[in-house]
């Protein structure tokens, strides 16, 4: 957390996702960085720890599943939220096994992801106090 603000990284190869989410989350007081390529996101994650990572699963190159595996390896307490347009029981199961915080099938409402982020934030703040 920087200045007590929660930092969020968003990775989705469709730019519209970040374009819509970024200002909306910034307005709510989060620090947001967005990426459309998984390699670039991974590079950034290696430089900087994010409190919350939101990632798509299906992408060119490094897949979302591989990316989130790397993230959890580097920072076990970073909360990962998966967003995907190809939601299946199997991918959901695999994601949860890797320790993600929640899983949202696209399309979803802004309010839905905000609620998930708020729950993640609560968990992070509780952990940092204890």
């Amino acid at each position: 957390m920087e200045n007590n603000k929660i930092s969020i990284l968003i990775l989705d190869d469709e730019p519209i996702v970040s374009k819509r989410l970024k200002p909306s989350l910034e307005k709510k007081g989060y620090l947001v960085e967005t990426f459309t390529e998984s390699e670039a996101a991974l590079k950034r994650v290696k430089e900087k720890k994010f409190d919350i990572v939101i990632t798509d699963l299906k992408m060119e190159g490094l897949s979302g599943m591989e990316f989130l595996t790397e993230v959890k390896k580097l920072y076990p307490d970073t909360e990962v939220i998966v967003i995907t347009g190809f939601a299946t029981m199997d991918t959901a199961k695999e994601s949860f096994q890797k320790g993600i915080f929640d899983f949202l099938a696209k399309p979803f409402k802004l309010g839905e992801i905000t609620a998930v982020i708020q729950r993640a934030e609560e968990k992070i703040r509780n952990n940092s106090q204890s």
Partner: protein
Amino acid sequence: MLHGETGGMFDKAINWAKNLVNSSGRSSASGLSFINTFARFREILAINNQSLELIADANDKLSGEYIFDTHYIETTCIKISSLVEKLIYALDEMAPGKYLALHDAFNRIHYDIEDILAGRQPRSENRLIIPYSDINRDMGDEVGGKNATLAQVGNFMGIRIPDGFAATAVAFARYMEQDRLGEKIKQITDSWENDEIDSATASSRIQPLILAAKIPTDLRAEISAAAAAIKKRQGKKKIFFAVRSSAWGEDSEHSFAGQYSSILNVPASKLGEAYKKVIASAYSASALEYRRRIGYTEKEVIMPVGFQQMLNPMCSGVLYTYDPVAPAKEVMIATSTWGLGAPVVSGTAAVDEFYMEREPPHKVVQTKITAKLQALVQAENGGTKVIDIPENRQMISSLTKEQLSELADTGLLIEKNFRKPQDIEFGFTHEGELTILQTRPLALKSFNAPSASELAAIKDRYKVIKEHCGTTAQDGIATGPVHIIHSDDDLKNFPPGAILVTKFASPKLASVLHMAAAVITEVGSVTGHLATVAREYRVPALFNCENITTTLREGQEITLDAEEPAIYEGVVKELKYYALSEEEIGETYEYRLLRRVLKKIEPLNLVDPTEKNFRPEACQTLHDIIRFVHEKAVQTIVDQGYYHPHDPDTAAGKLKLGVPMDLVVIDIGGGLAEDIETGKKAIIKPEQVRSVPMKALIQGIINPKAWTNEPVPVDMGSFMSSLTRTFSAEITSPRELGQNLAVISLEYANVSLRLGYHFTMIDTYISDNMNDNYAYFRFFGGVTDDARRARRARFIGAVLSHYDFRIDLHGDLVVARLKKLDKEAMLKRVYLLGLLIGVTRQLDVRMVNEQRVKEYTQNLIELLEDGYGKQQN
């Protein structure tokens, strides 16, 4: 509906009916039995509903409330398309070979959707010329941004624009193919791009080629025809046009201002020449230089052209809705002069200057009147000329106070609709009528708009009136004075720019929505009619915000952030400027794509089955096909089961109910008494019905109170029109009676009713086994305005949810589902559906106000509780 939860049950019902038919001794059918036809029919009903719900959901995505991507758009299109294809196949199984033309209609629409998804011009949209009245903001690729935005202003904001038409990008491509013109130009621009020749040389070689090329014959003919149509419409002997560029990228962040030509006052006979000149202007030396400077490639040069009826203005000018160098001053700037506006735009003439407050009543804070010695005006036989202004008019203000105020209001309206500060060209006719000639986004300098992250703390600085209340029907930020609507009268003289606050999201409000800064209601559906219109106009809309009509005061200044959602006291400057500077999400590629594909899916053009155009060839959208298939499926069932029965498994006849409603009944097993006569002439009495759910339904339908105990209609005109439309359809076409159909068995009933313009569908299975029981009810349509139909839908929803139905409202479509109640409870509820059929028949005409919704709900519940037991006994 019939899929999913009740799908399995349906199979059970059918199998059960089949067994019963076999065991009852009626021999099984050969060929496509009625049972099989009916199975296809049920499949059609199920898919019909599934596809309509997918379409409504897709429209909801445009609200800005969802995160969706192109993957969603593609998969949704595939889903809807494949459902519609299934519908066509199912109908073909019911009526083999009869509606083959549906395949062509489907392919035509489906290919268009594929083209749009692939970023291509839809192959059916190859028009060379499109009248302004058929153009909207999303057609920028086809007609160019300037034409598209101007037409949007005229067609959707109720603002006057010149009559006109556009020569499309397709027309440009055709012109470039002629005599290999495009290839020749490319050779020259290639060597210019390689610095082998300079811009002046390139231009001097390209422009004569364009001017010498022949306009394709069909394009020339279509231009003449479009001009002649305007001449006729305007009742003019002679007509002149302004021919204006509307190139791709013009009006984008690169304004291309002044790069391309406009040719003024062109007589109808010389439009072809003017068209060539405008296209040639794309290759002026300065245009080539400009494109090189901003990195715009030559491939991207595509030039649709606008042809606008020439305005003969008293004065013309330009309005900026903000001061571009000092936006925080909150003023608008108008400049104007006598005659035509070209000198104002090019900055070559002496002009009057006015600074006015953005806030109504737009007080003029600074005026500069300049001596206007000359004016540019139309020459009699075409072209323009400069005339001297008499001395006594030189120092007179070219705009009156009233004109300035009207101009400012109009400017704000346009700005509100495009959600960006605007640079607007206008003219006032000699009769004093304001006409908008062009509008485009205005770039603001030194605009200290806050970033999104700076907005996080505004709740500490401003008073929040309400937050986290309601559901967002359309995203966005708006500021303005509250205007509370209590009755329809309040809609008259709606103050432009006000925030509309009212109890119900009634479709009636649509008539003022283009003027409202935002709309907030206490009740409303995000898939309802008003939500759709709010998304079309992109007016921020917040529904289901409790007690808002009493929380807010008339005239109170507020700021609505529909995304949050939150309502603030006063004007929250940070939010306001943020909204103006933020990239408009509705203009992103994905939103435009979704809107474009929905145009091929959503609109319903085939409404009345008795009309001539109710045929496959006339289907323009997938919704049209869905509607057509549904209508023909019902007809086929009635044909096969009643008019031309050939299946010994079924019995059929006309049910005599004693109320003004004819109903064809087809029994697929045990639904009717064994001893009845069947066939075309057979009349069935209610007591001969054995079907358990049908009996309950009939008792409800024939309850005389459901038909007679209503107060006298207040609005006789509307009532009569409902009556005549209902009855005339029945009288002129007795076959239409057959549209009321019940397919029944001992424990099952499927009822399709078309009473006048209402469509009702009931599907229910009731037995002693509670777990198998279900009832499904769907209702939509009507003859009156959307507001009353929506009220009626709310009434039905209120009654049915009171009796445990799960309700989905999509505008005037009501879907109600119920399952797994015991037999007695199910029968009571199906009886209620019967009552509803009687009550709702003309109910929409009586739904003149919201009070009626409550009254009728209460009345009907009483009717049920009083009448049910008694009638049973």
